[in-house]
């Protein structure tokens, strides 16, 4: 059957920017390589104008749309949908302007997160939300997922930095909220769009808040004899209202992986747990914060404390932390990255539980997490060719999620729901809650064409709990609604 509309797409964006051949396989998954999908085409528009024409065409043809940034998401949010078209922002890489007075940046959605901070630096500014994938992930993707990062402990997640967006909705209309005032004139549509995982439309441009570069930064690492001690130290620090800019923990397995990789940061390998804390701001308050951390660390048995002596050392310490996920890739062919949130008063308990769940199933689990926010990343190494191991890994992931929720925690702190956590939405929300989300989505996208089969389970929670919704990790996850 001739797809005339695909030919029409080529006339809009240029023939090179519509991909339908065998190389389409490269787009079959995002950072969650376990889940794959195949659509009808991939389209790469250059700007908002091309995106509008593309979206109008796809609306006319009733084709589902999957927005995609750099495809670094870890929950399958950018997995292609059967019969759908992936619309990517990879060609929308322009930084339009930086306003040093208003501390704002106007960028296209495909701009890479770290590129913005690099560009803002000469103005004495930086972009605060710093996911570990910041050298690759796009700002549009950050908006869709409300991405976090270590420094969100002080500065807040992406949603606290999105001032305005330009979005092309399911019907191809442009919602231009770029020049938004400090408070929204009507409804807070920008706040609604942030974190909506591509289901309300395609963000093509963003206006973001920038922060002034801190006057002073201090970074320390503290070596603990046990993960328990490190967690307790953090819990106490939070209770003492510490105002650090980032509080991170790495465990022994993760440290070993990092030290074996190109990101070797000089972390002491004998550490059972490593606490990485950074404080930024005025010189005096930074010193007080660090002193408080040192005090607490010693109280909880820290065996060694090191302070970064210069920018280079600080950069190395952070490169190690941010490279942890990638470095774990050396430990086994595949990595399951969990992303649960624990109440900060119960860090130790939940971390210990995660370890136990993995041990029971003979799995290697490495903990690296944003301890300050209670956002845990229990990472499990495995080989996808071993079907039984895959089953055990998924089971462990599920149990960890359930354990967290039972103790007042949450499903996901920064990676989003996507495909991976869809069925678990029922653990956190009931049918009324989810139906309300459906209502909002249906109001904006009545034909359910924007990123379908993601985030919201389509069956009632009762059915989901009784195993009603299939999640097939090894095969094609089509739009089987």
């Amino acid at each position: 059957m001739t797809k005339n509309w695909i030919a029409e797409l080529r006339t809009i964006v240029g023939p090179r920017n519509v991909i339908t051949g065998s190389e389409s396989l490269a787009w079959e998954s995002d950072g969650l390589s376990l889940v794959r999908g195949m659509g009808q085409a991939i389209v790469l528009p250059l700007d908002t104008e091309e995106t509008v024409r593309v979206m109008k065409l796809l609306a006319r043809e009733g084709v589902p749309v999957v927005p995609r940034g750099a495809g670094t998401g870890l929950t399958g949010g950018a997995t292609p949908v059967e019969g759908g078209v992936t619309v990517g922002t990879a060609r929308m890489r322009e930084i339009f302007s930086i306003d040093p007075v208003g501390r704002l940046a106007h960028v296209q959605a495909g701009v890479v997160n770290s590129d913005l901070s690099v560009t803002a630096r000469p103005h004495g500014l930086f972009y605060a939300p710093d996911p570990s994938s910041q050298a690759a992930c796009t700002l549009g993707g950050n908006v869709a997922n409300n991405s976090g990062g270590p420094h969100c402990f002080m500065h807040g997640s992406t949603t606290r930095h999105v001032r305005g967006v330009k979005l092309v909705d399911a019907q191809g209309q442009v919602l231009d909220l770029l020049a938004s005032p400090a408070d929204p004139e009507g409804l807070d549509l920008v706040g609604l769009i942030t974190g909506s995982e591509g289901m309300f439309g395609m963000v093509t441009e963003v206006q973001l808040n920038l922060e002034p570069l801190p006057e002073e930064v201090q970074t320390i690492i503290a070596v603990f004899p046990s993960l328990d001690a490190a967690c307790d130290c953090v819990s106490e620090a939070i209770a003492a209202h510490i105002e650090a800019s980032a509080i991170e923990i790495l465990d022994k397995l993760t440290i070993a992986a990092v030290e074996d990789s190109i990101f070797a940061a000089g972390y002491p390998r004998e550490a059972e747990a490593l606490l990485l804390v950074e404080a930024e701001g005025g010189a005096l308050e930074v010193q007080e914060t660090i002193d408080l951390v040192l005090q607490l660390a010693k109280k909880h048995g820290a065996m060694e404390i090191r302070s970064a002596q210069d920018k280079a050392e600080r950069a190395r310490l952070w490169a190690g932390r941010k490279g942890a996920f990638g470095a774990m890739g050396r430990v086994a062919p595949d990595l399951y990255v969990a992303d649960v949130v624990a109440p900060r008063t119960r860090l130790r308990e939940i971390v210990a539980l995660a370890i136990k769940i993995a041990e029971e199933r003979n799995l290697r689990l490495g903990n690296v997490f944003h301890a300050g926010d209670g956002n845990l990343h229990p990472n499990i190494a495995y080989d996808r060719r071993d079907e039984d191991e895959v089953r055990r890994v998924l089971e462990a992931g599920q149990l960890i999620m359930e354990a967290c929720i039972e103790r007042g925690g949450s499903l996901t702190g920064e990676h989003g729901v996507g495909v991976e956590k869809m069925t678990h939405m029922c653990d956190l929300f009931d049918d009324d809650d989810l139906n309300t989300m459906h209502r909002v989505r249906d109001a904006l996208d009545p034909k359910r064409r924007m990123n379908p089969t993601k985030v919201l389970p389509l069956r009632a929670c009762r059915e989901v709990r009784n195993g009603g919704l299939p999640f097939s990790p090894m095969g094609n996850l089509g739009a089987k609604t």
Partner: protein
Amino acid sequence: MSQTNASDRAHLLGQGSGCALGEVHELTCLAPKDHGQLAEVLGEARRRSFSVLPIGAGSQLAWCRPDAIDDPANAPTPISLMHMAGVLEQIPGEGTVTAQAGTPWCDLAQAVEQSGECLPADLAGATTSTLGGILAAGRSGPNRLRHGPLRHHVLGMQVMLSDGTLAKSGGRLVKNVTGFDLHRLYTGSRGTLAIILDASLRLKALPEREWSFSMPVADCASGFTKALEIQQVMPRLHWLVLTRTQNEVRLQGGLAGRASQVKADQERVLTALGDTPEFFDGQAPTERKRLGEEGAENRHAWEIGSPLTHCAELLGILEAQLPTETKLWVDCGAGRILVGPAGDATVTEKPSWAETIGAEATSLRPLCVHRHLHAQWTGSNPSPTQTDWQQRLTCGLDPAGIFSMTLDPGEAPA
């Protein structure tokens, strides 16, 4: 339906549903005891096709006084959640609090102070306002300069939709990205989408020390320019407000945080200010409360939003155009300009000076007319798509139309 006035209707309902009546600002309103009763009231509203309006503590009524609406007979029935108040959860060491919507903000502030924490917005002047009311009105405090607007610190919410459905979004944790952030949608929706029942907020540490200054300036334009300068010099400023009253124009601001840092920072601020202003140490919170009250939206008629780079110019234009008794209150970090006089509920037309500020401002809205959310008012200029989205959302969440006073259900988009 019969031509009864609002209070009659309220009485009728009250008797019918067993729901008590309350009084807020001389308005008779329904005060349901719990979620069940509230659902019943909403049910009645759907059946008898009249609209309801959650009014919090009534401080924002200036913008929706029943007699301001064209058709008093069809004025909305006020609902107060005064009986659904109180803290639901505050775990020491978690840094969050969850409370019911009817909780007075001040009570909440006091409750968290006990554990050395404070609420994320400094609305200390809002003496009676409720949590739900403040969130629904989308209010923030002057300390948004440092901490961001209040909506950025709402972690989750539970609301009741027009059909009585209880719906949650978000959660009680500081980091959470599960599902859509509907609580961001409800915040600032002025009760047109749902009734907020409870909300979770992120708390901040009580500052060890506060300090503020107050200084007369020649006029608003130069005052704002000075404000921008100081912000560059001292990024840790907590709040910075420019006020124009009959007598004078003043630039006021303050710091808060660790004592040693505040001490060092205040010297830098004083140096940057040049002339020696009055400054306050221990008095600071009271000063700020007074200021905050002055900055409440219910004392002003208009709000203008402007990019910081254009504010000074815009203020110059306003000062030239407005009579000297017109009050101005400017949040120098957010670019928000509030223009007096207070609470003119009959404002329906764009003021004469609105034309001249056109290019400089990004938004202009009246603070006293509720219906602007539906873009039926000429003052604001939302784009057709924005209007479309707002209509779709309102119809999607409230198909019966009981939360919107002027939207005729027959006009709902397909």
